[in-house]
């Protein structure tokens, strides 16, 4: 006698879940009130042993529609449908995000991806400081590679100082914004996104020019400084390259 009980309780659970999903657009409190008696009802019907729940009660969606209509919660069908669709897609998105968060996180040895991201944050702060240093030294506005430690003007030492200062400032700012309220954090995020976009733009521009001139690596040491002051050093050898580097750098 154990097996049928087990099967029917599973059936009850699945049926109840399907009804719940069909009512997902209702406000949570209203929905829970409406579903309060459902498990008991289904258990009782299942216990009568006169066929499956679907045979006795119809499919769960029909049950839900009947329940909703009888409870008088079906007054704006058009609006309900739109709200239902929005609510469902939002919930599906949130569910997927949560599943990815835990699933991928576990694959990488963390409870959630979020925890990994938190652990990686100081690393990002260092990278951010470095990007800012690159940006500060990009004075000629021709986006190109300045070397791992950029020159400030012509001074390598100045570049080192700027890079270290920017990294320290970024770390300090990171520690501060970690516990800041919502809107300063929002600004910090916006600035970070802008920095990343800028860095990617320069990087694609640099890769483009490198591909054209068949040169790669820290250009300042690999190539002698070109005669024309506006030419990117990375593109020194090919005559067409400066224009290409310029256009790819700016279009990106």
């Amino acid at each position: 006698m154990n097996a049928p009980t087990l099967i029917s309780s599973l059936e009850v659970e699945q049926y109840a879940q399907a009804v719940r999903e069909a009512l997902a657009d209702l406000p949570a409190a209203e929905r829970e009130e409406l579903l309060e008696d459902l498990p008991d009802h289904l258990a009782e019907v299942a216990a009568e042993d006169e066929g499956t729940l679907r045979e006795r009660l119809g499919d769960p969606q029909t049950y839900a529609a009947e329940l909703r209509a009888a409870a008088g919660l079906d007054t704006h069908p058009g609006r309900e449908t739109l709200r239902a669709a929005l609510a469902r897609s939002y919930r599906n998105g949130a569910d997927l995000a949560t599943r990815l968060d835990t699933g991928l996180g576990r694959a990488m040895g963390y409870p959630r991806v979020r925890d990994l991201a938190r652990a990686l944050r100081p690393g990002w702060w260092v990278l951010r400081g470095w990007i800012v240093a690159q940006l500060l030294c990009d004075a000629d506005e021709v986006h190109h590679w300045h070397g791992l430690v950029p020159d400030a003007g012509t001074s390598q030492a100045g570049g080192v100082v700027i890079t270290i200062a920017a990294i320290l400032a970024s770390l300090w700012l990171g520690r501060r914004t970690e516990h800041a309220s919502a809107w300063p954090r929002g600004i910090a995020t916006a600035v970070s996104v802008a920095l990343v976009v800028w860095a990617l733009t320069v990087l694609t521009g640099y890769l483009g020019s490198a591909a054209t001139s068949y040169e790669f690596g820290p250009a300042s040491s690999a190539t002698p400084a070109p005669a024309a002051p506006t030419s990117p050093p990375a593109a020194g050898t090919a005559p067409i390259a400066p224009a290409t580097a310029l256009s790819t750098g700016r279009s990106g």
Partner: protein
Amino acid sequence: MDSTQLLKGVLDLAVLAVVRDQDGYGYDIVRRLRSAGLHEVGDASVYGTLRRLFQAGLLTTYVVPSETGPHRKYYALNDAGRAQLELSRKVWAEFATSMHTLLDGTAAA
């Protein structure tokens, strides 16, 4: 004619009448409606109606603990429910009389 269509209009009245006789929990009320001859009544319709009548303040609820099965929520008629039932009963009686007269008259003609 489909009796489920007729039922929609009078389910409130039928549920109130069943609960007036005796307090009941959801499925118990479904069974009593069926044994009173309303075989077409849908389970979900009764549960939804109970919920709506409760929200409208015509029914009160209380939970009865059970030692074997689940704790059951019982519905009982309150004064507002009784007044509503009395009113609906008069409306129904007039309506039914009119329909009888109409139908009998048509049959005789």
